[in-house]
């Protein structure tokens, strides 16, 4: 798959990002990559329960797009498994991520959900479920509430190229478009849905082309260019906040790792991964950009790297010592009321069960 970058970032038109912000973008991208590398080690040590999902090579699209939201205004996003970077930008911490993956009792979901399936409405990200597409109607509703209440908040929902084939994606984006919800829909086109190439997912040449059928603007950008991604998302966010409704953004990127850690990518044409790694790594590209065009020194960058490593080391140590979940916690909080699901009879021991089976005098005297 070739990379097109119709919207290469142009420093001239860069919507006023300060030098600190440029460095912050680098920090989040680096943090994403290093945190995932740490997770790989933990996975190999079998300390990760369940599967591990990587966003290697997609850090720019996750970080750049989320960075365009304004947390101070209460903007909300809904991530996918490859949006670790987006969640970090919204304030998720490495400690939370590590505890999640390690199924700890003090993880954000208390061990109930996997990997980065968790959320925090206060910080502005919503916990996804596995069923792809479902978050689009949900985010249509989140942003519908912004509109109904007259709040100037914006929502951002990510879908993969594969998830665009779901009915939920279609119903959700159409609903949001008709209601002019302040929603940005980002299609992360990373070339594959598990083993399925985009050519088997859709007959259209660009996912951006789906926008017109919903009567909304559609744009395409180079998802491996963090500034271009930021720029195009920021424009869509501003449009949404301004009351002009939904924008569809297709971000071109590439999934360099398998669907999950176990996937050997046998289905990928030889050389494709290597080419993307060599020619189009979002961190390499951004480093060049920072040093060559924004006069950032290697010193500064190393300081960021150091900070990232320190944070991850500390988080790892802390996560390792986190307790396992308390089994009985599994019965709490299915409902607000009752807040507790009762334990099944054979776990309670037998007395109570027996008692409920002692019938009083009236044996068989059903007629009186």
């Amino acid at each position: 798959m070739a990379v097109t970058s119709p919207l290469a970032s142009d420093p001239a038109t860069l919507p006023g990002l300060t030098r600190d912000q440029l460095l912050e973008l680098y920090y989040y991208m680096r943090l994403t990559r290093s945190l995932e590398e740490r997770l790989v080690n933990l996975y190999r040590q079998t300390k990760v329960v369940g599967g591990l999902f990587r966003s290697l090579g997609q850090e720019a699209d996750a970080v750049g797009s989320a960075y365009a939201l304004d947390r101070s205004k209460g903007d909300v996003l809904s991530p996918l498994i490859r949006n670790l970077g987006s969640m970090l930008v919204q304030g998720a911490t490495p400690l939370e991520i590590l505890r999640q993956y390690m199924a700890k009792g003090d993880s954000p979901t208390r061990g109930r959900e996997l990997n980065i399936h968790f959320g925090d409405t206060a910080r502005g990200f919503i916990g996804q479920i596995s069923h792809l597409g479902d978050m689009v109607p949900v985010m249509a509703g989140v942003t519908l509430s912004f509109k109904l209440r007259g709040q100037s908040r914006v929502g951002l929902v990510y879908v993969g190229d594969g998830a665009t084939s779901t009915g939920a994606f279609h119903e959700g984006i159409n609903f949001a478009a008709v209601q002019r919800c302040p929603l940005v829909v980002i299609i992360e086109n990373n070339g594959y849905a598990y083993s399925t190439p985009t050519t088997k997912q859709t007959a259209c040449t660009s996912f951006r082309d789906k926008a017109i059928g919903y009567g909304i603007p559609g744009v395409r950008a180079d998802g491996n260019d963090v500034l271009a991604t930021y720029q195009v998302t920021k424009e869509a966010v501003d449009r949404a906040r301004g009351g002009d409704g939904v924008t569809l953004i297709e971000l071109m990127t590439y999934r360099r790792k398998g669907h999950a850690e176990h996937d050997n990518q046998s289905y990928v044409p030889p050389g494709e991964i290597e080419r993307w790694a060599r020619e189009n790594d979002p961190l390499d590209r951004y480093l060049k950009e920072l040093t060559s065009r924004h006069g950032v020194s290697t010193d500064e960058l190393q300081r960021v790297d150091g900070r990232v490593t320190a944070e991850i080391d500390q988080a790892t140590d802390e996560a390792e010592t986190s307790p396992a979940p308390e089994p009985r916690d599994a019965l709490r909080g299915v409902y607000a009321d009752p807040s507790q699901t009762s334990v099944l009879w054979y776990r309670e021991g037998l007395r109570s069960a027996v008692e409920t089976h002692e019938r009083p005098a009236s044996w068989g005297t059903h007629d009186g």
Partner: protein
Amino acid sequence: MSGPRAGAPTMAESTYLEAIRQGLFEEMERDPEVFCLGEDIGGYGGAFKVTEGLQARFGKRRVIDTPLSEAAIVGAAAGAAHMGMRPVCEMQFIDFISCAYDMLTNYVATARYRAFLPCPMVVRGPSGGYVRGGPFHSQNPEAAFLHTPGLKIVYPATASDAKGLLKSAIRDDDCVLFFEHKYLYRRIKEQLPEGDYVVPIGKARLAREGRDLSIITYAATVWKALEAAEQLEREDGLSVEVLDLRSLLPLDDEAIADTVRRTNRVLIVHEDTVTGGVAGEIAARINDLAFEWLDAPIKRVAAHDVPLPYAPQLEDFVLPQTGDIVRAARWVARY
């Protein structure tokens, strides 16, 4: 079905349908976070006119006509509910709730448990048969949601319960599926309780007291059971108790156990097909709660295991009728 009370409505009486509409009006008056969304519910007032007048009163912002998208209606309601609003979704016919099955069972039902996301919302719609609606406008899908922890299910049989349970459903902090029996919409009427009348979710209603036999049922067949009970008293001198469950999730175990322990014989009646219907769960619970009190096998009266056909002769044959309840009750009583 002749079960429902006959006679023209007096000024003070409300139909089952009016009771639901009143409930919607009162809750929208009470709480500005409550809003309605669905297909054709606004200017048109819905296929059965349940929401008639709602948009005129509360405006287009709070009574939203949506695209033809059940999954989006339910999903959007969930998103708004996360943000603190209290959406009430209408399925034009409850048969179409199947299109939102994934959204309800996987997203909505698990939100609080897996992500601590509150999801206070109601999904309501016209349900049930006896109306010549054919296989896709007559369904009773309650059993399909019974094994989904995180959902609540209510299915009222009377106008007061319809109003009182709807108000509880809207105030509940979790998702409540509110089934309305379309056969009852305009056929039953009663004087509704004064004031802010609320019926708690999870509590059954003793529709008729008796000593010889208990009929456990809900929704439209409550009326058939009452009709059968009268006939059995008249013709057999049998004293039949009728328990109207009202709530299916959670079930009122106490009320179920009590009635079985009182009469020692039980017949479970519902309109849904027999295999995999709610009656199975109730039978299992009676075994748990009152096995020793049973003097006869728990028997079921329900629809035959076929899609519901359209022609009156076929629909009437497939669905449980009063005569079936009478025959089955006699068998259980004589056992």
